[in-house]
């Protein structure tokens, strides 16, 4: 494994920062120019990230140091397989979301669009920073920037609920942030370094109690963003944000950043050997299984579409963590793949929710009767996405779930196999009523049965992501080589 010095990680982050400044400068004067900055930046970012794929697949690691603060402490980027996976996901989906945002914001004639696009660009910069961090300090820096950049997006509507949602979001994430700061300081003092190492570096550096405490504290604080119960409450409340925000950020960027952080802690700070020896892996696995099952029941009880999707997101995030906690090669691979594949599927579902809102101003499941006749493309994509989340072939969701189930067998824990299967069943239980209502029920009075889709800018992205879910289900290694990257990452962690 060679270390290559390359400025590409920094470029990937700077692209959207520069775009953010340009967006701010262009402002409200020329809307098309402003939107085109966003699209240009998203495409450029994707190209930069994609250009790193061949090098990483060869086994290289791309490094770039911004500045060194002290021995063992620096702001540094290191693009390894796992980080690249997350980076590809975020940059690909930003392209789709940019087009979708244009359709959504203009369709609803929203206010404060400049602020919206500005914060979005910064949030994506921060996400890339998180993906490419070489150590806990860099991760923390970009993590906090992400929190700050997404707060104005959550409170965008400026209604009292939006402000309350923003406050709750800040309370949860800032508290988690300072706990991470404390743990980071302790780790730095104990080991003298904060760099991520595949297989962990903490073992044997402090008393067992201190290590346990650090592990629990770190997992729980990153787990706030990853919406592990009982710290999940901010996510359904944050659904008050505009749908593109919910789609990209709260299905893909912010929550996946949380999960990414949890996985980095489990696999690159503490390491599978430590978790295995202390038995923490089983405790963690049971803990997140609770979230997996209970969130499905919450989802069943929600009428608001976005809240239902929020609980489904909570479900899937814990599935990823469970995969990592099982510590077997296939389970970890499945978890990492699920980060990527679930992103595509969930964003489709959120896009559909937004399209429905823009076209018909409906927000609840009970109002969706017969909508499939009016908006067949939209609801069809929803069906594909739902199938994916439930894990039905030929969607990509099936592939990640398959690896996860294999992994639980490898780890000799049948219980979790049942957890995965049960969650798939419950997913079906709360998604299929929506599909059924849309296509098979008679439309209510106010639903126009003739073809009347949402604006094109919205429909094309959501169909694109739905189709990608299908394509990735059949050719999982297509375009961006997700499976190869995930396999490489697991090989590095478990030591070949």
């Amino acid at each position, binding site marked *: 494994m060679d270390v290559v010095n390359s400025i590409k990680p920094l470029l990937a982050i700077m692209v959207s920062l520069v775009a953010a400044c340009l967006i701010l400068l262009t402002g409200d004067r020329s809307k098309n120019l402003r939107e085109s900055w966003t699209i240009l930046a998203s495409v450029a970012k994707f190209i930069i990230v994609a250009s790193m794929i061949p090098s990483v697949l060869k086994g290289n690691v791309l490094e770039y140091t911004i500045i060194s603060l002290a021995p063992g402490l620096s702001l540094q980027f290191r693009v390894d397989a796992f980080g690249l996976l997350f980076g590809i996901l975020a940059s690909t989906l930003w392209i789709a979301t940019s087009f979708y945002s244009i359709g959504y914001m203009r369709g609803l004639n929203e*206010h404060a669009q400049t602020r919206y696009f500005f914060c979005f660009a910064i949030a994506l910069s921060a996400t890339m920073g998180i993906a490419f961090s070489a150590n806990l300090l860099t991760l923390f820096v970009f993590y906090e920037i992400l929190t700050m950049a997404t707060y104005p997006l959550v409170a965008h509507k*400026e209604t009292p609920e939006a402000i309350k949602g923003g406050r709750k979001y800040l309370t949860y994430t800032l508290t988690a942030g300072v706990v991470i700061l404390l743990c980071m300081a302790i780790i730095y*003092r104990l080991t003298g370094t904060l760099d991520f190492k595949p297989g962990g570096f903490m073992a044997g550096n402090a008393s067992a109690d201190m290590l346990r405490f650090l592990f629990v504290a770190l997992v729980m604080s990153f787990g706030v963003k990853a919406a592990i119960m009982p710290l999940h409450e901010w996510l359904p409340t944050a659904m008050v944000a505009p749908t593109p925000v919910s789609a990209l950020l709260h299905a893909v960027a912010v929550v996946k950043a949380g999960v990414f952080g949890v996985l980095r802690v489990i696999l690159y700070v503490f390491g599978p050997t430590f978790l295995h020896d202390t038995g923490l892996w089983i405790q963690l696995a049971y803990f997140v299984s609770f979230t997996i099952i209970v969130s499905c029941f919450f989802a069943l009880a929600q009428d608001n579409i976005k809240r239902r999707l929020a609980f489904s997101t909570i479900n899937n995030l814990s599935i990823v963590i469970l995969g990592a906690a099982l510590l077997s090669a296939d389970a970890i691979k499945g978890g990492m793949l699920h980060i990527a594949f679930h992103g595509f599927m969930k964003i489709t579902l959120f896009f559909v929710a937004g399209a429905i809102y823009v076209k018909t101003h409906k927000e609840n499941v009970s109002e969706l009767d017969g909508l499939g006749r009016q908006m067949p493309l939209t609801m069809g994509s929803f069906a594909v996405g739902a199938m994916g989340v439930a894990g039905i072939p030929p969607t990509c969701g099936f592939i990640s779930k398959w690896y996860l189930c294999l992994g639980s067998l490898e780890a000799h824990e049948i219980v979790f196999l049942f957890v995965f299967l049960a969650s798939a069943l419950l997913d079906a239980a709360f998604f299929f009523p929506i599909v059924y209502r849309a296509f098979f029920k008679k439309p209510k009075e106010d639903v126009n049965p003739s073809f009347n889709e949402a604006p094109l800018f919205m429909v094309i992205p959501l169909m694109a992501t739905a189709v990608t879910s299908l394509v990735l289900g059949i050719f999982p290694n297509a375009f961006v080589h997700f499976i190869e990257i995930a396999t490489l990452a697991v090989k590095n962690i478990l030591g070949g």
Partner: protein
Amino acid sequence: MISDQFPALIIVFPLVTAFFINIVGWWWKKPCFYMSVLALTVSFISSIGILNTVLIQGTIHYKLGGWDPPWGIEYVVDHLNAFILVIVSFVGLIVGIYSKRSVEQDFPQKIPQFYSVYTLLVMGLLGMTITGDAFNLYVLLEITSLASYALIAMGEDGAPLASFNYVIMGTIGACFYLLGVGYLYIVTGSLNMADLSELLPKLYHSKAVLVAFAFFLIGIGIKMAFFPLHVWLPDAYTHAPSSVSAFVAGTMTKVGAYVLIRVLFTIFRPYFSIELIPATTVLGWTAVAAMMYGCILAIAQRDLKRMLCYILIAEVGYIVLGISMANRMGLTGAILHIMNDALMMACLFSVAGAIMYKIGNRDITNFRDQQLNKKMPFTMAAFTITALSVIGIPPTCGFFSKWYLVIGAIDAQQWVFAVALILSSLLSAVVFFKVIEKIYFKPREPVNPHNGETHEDVVMDEAPMSMLIPIYIMVGGILILGILSGKIISTVIQFAIPASF
């Protein structure tokens, strides 16, 4: 070489200029501002020259009038001094430039007096930092205090009374400091700081020295507004004119903290302050109380400046906490925080001053109705970035000093301190996000998120450039100095810490 004379130049030039400003002001008001800025620029350049010399050669000993210490007064500049000199002169210069418009608006007849006394104030603080003689420090402390009494009294409605109370309390503080110096003189016969640190160790058991130490701490505590001796600060800084608050908030308390470091670790050796008397322990716990008190009371304030005053009290708590940890990391964090806090507080008070200049009132609950986010977007952006720094969000500089403070607390095995640091970060987040919400997000009547991007009648009515540019220079500093903090520590701060840590 003129650079050899920088230690004297940095004091003499503003002193003489202040005198001339007063004279020139009899006839023409216009040159006063420019003369003051000229003097402050000379000071700033001298301070950079001094820092340069110290980095190359080590400690500078400058004997005033050629008299040898310990009989003559000498100026001793080591790394700690030089660093703080640069900070104080920089903030003085920036706020001096900033002050032009607000002084013209608030009291146009008193411009010469203002600039003359302001220059004296900056000079006094620089003198306090540079001197190596304990009694000389008292003199300069009083010069500073008198100048600040006069400047604060120029402010708005409640200012004369607030300044009077400040006179009373400040004099008590200075007199206690003088008593401390007196007791030390009685037992050692010397007033020179380096000499005292040689002579005192044999006398540590003597009661007089203990009493002197106590007097020093109380006196400096009053000047530094260290809880519970902070009572004069909220009233005085709230009612003071905007530029005065911006400057003193950024510097007076920090120079007070510098004097505390000198007393604790230079005059009295670390052994005395840490082990013989648990002074650092007491200071540490009081600092925790200061942090909590400041942040909690800040939440309750409606006036923006009063809120910032309580945050200032909390910030002083941070610095003293870092000092009291008495280990390398903690003291690094404290000194770094002196720099960061000077910039942050000066910037925050400058923003409050800009708001006052434009709108005429500082009530937080009015901010949304005033449409400040549309009228003064740049000022509000500066406020937001600085607020993030106070909370401790990376990559602003506030995060880095908090990082070192937390590591220092862990090093000292004081978990309560670490938790207190974290709690106060969260509390200050509550304080600032309350204001940020009111600026950007308070629901408008009628609530309609879909009224589109209306280019309504709200015209951008920003603060004037002469106010915005200084504010943005400080914001730039906040953003960049954080990332450079590693360089700063390795070049300057590392050497400022006593070797025994």
